[in-house]
């Protein structure tokens, strides 16, 4: 039975991916900050036939990553899926949410980097042996088109763009450094999705995004490692 570890699994894309992988017969390690408050995950637990485990993970507290590693031990992880992310206290579609030049909140800037970049780096380092010991050997981090410098036509969003470009950079370095272990590593843009982060005006619904993401991950080979993938099978420039 293939196994996936998903961060940010309590809502939005992480929850959607958890549901999809469970429905496809996978073993799912679902990680989130507040498992006791993750009502949807708790409901899934009841019908998961022991294929779902829920873990406490807070990417601002890296010890929680190591605690999950202690629980999982050497069990293989076919797909390591970094979904947990942070935009800021005000989402993009709300007043004041555009992170405009001259209004930068540097506390938010640091937190965004910690959650969106240091977090995935720590998760990949911690579980690399589990991935290397699996059949599929895939590490995917949910990035954003906001992390494409080449596609940036509208400016703004400084802390968020910076974090997503940075996470693209580390996934590219992993694709090179982990190649001889046959690990496939890539960032993936999920589309602009109607989630709590994306807001109600976003382009696509979560179901469209997560089914696309799962398809893209299924089709990933070494040839896709180190590329900037998109949920619909296309590719973005850096």
């Amino acid at each position, binding site marked *: 039975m293939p196994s996936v570890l998903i961060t940010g699994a309590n809502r939005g894309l992480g929850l959607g991916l958890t549901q999809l992988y469970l429905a496809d017969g996978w073993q799912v390690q679902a990680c989130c900050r507040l498992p006791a408050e993750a009502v949807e995950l708790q409901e899934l637990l009841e019908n998961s036939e022991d294929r779902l485990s829920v873990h406490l993970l807070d990417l601002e507290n890296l010890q929680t990553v190591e605690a999950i590693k202690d629980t999982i031990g050497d069990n293989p992880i076919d797909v390591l899926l970094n979904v947990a992310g942070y935009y800021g206290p005000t989402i993009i579609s709300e007043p004041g949410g555009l992170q405009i*030049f001259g209004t*930068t909140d540097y506390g938010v800037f640091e937190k965004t*980097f910690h959650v969106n970049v240091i977090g995935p780096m720590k998760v990949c380092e911690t579980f690399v042996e589990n991935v290397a010991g699996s059949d599929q050997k895939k590490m995917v981090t949910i990035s954003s088109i906001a992390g494409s*410098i080449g596609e940036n036509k509208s*400016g*703004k969003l400084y802390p968020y763009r*910076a974090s997503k470009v940075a996470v693209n950079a*580390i996934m590219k*370095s992993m694709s090179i450094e982990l190649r001889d272990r046959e690990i496939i590593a890539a960032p993936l843009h999920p589309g602009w999705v109607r989630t709590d982060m994306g807001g109600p005006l976003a382009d696509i619904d979560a179901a469209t995004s997560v089914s696309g993401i799962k398809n893209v991950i299924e089709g990933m080979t070494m040839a896709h490692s180190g590329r900037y993938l998109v949920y619909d099978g296309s590719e973005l420039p*850096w």
Partner: protein
Amino acid sequence: MPTALISGASRGLGLGLAEVLLADHWLVHACCRNPEASERLKLLKTEAEGRLLVHTLDVLDHSSIEALASSLGGQPIDALLNVAGYYGTPGLTEPGGLQQFGNQDFDDWMKIYRTNVIGPMKMCEVFVENVAASKRKIMISLSSELGSIGENDLGKMYAYRASKAALNAIMKSMSIDLSEKGIVAVSLHPGWVRTDMGGPEAPCDVQTSVAGMKKVIDEISLKHSGKFMVYNGSEMGW
């Protein structure tokens, strides 16, 4: 007389840029953490005919940036040059300095990000009106080839690459957001230079790098804004 403000001006590329700009009769605000400790900066001051003004500034200490802005008031700054940067500890050419996978110091990651991304962001926000009030209206952040995701074929150096890619992202957003003020915002790769950071094996000397960067500064215009420029006049992919 054109005016430059340089962070990290006590040594290496920052000092070299101060020298070539002074030689071309610019007024130079040279900023560094500890002016008293830089003998070369002191010597330069004695030869500068009053055109070199030395200021205490630490890009990690935002209050020091604001204090300098208060003391400069509305004086125009033709070229804001973010040179201060940090590779990490140990340095690039020291044992263990390659920031290999599995070997991250995440406290150092935050210092690298604060110095290389958040510092320049704060500098640009604080001095934007001074730049807008000048004739040349230039904001340049020294980036690195290591911040090019597309050019990365060696892997490793996670924290440093992430910071320079993120720096490129914010300069690109500034090029868009500040275009209506007529401000030119770019990232500039100085070459791999024999400085304290670059190490003794680097192929380029400081003189070649700063002479090239001076030419870039002389010739830069709005059509270059938002690009990833190189000291030798070429351009780099993201």
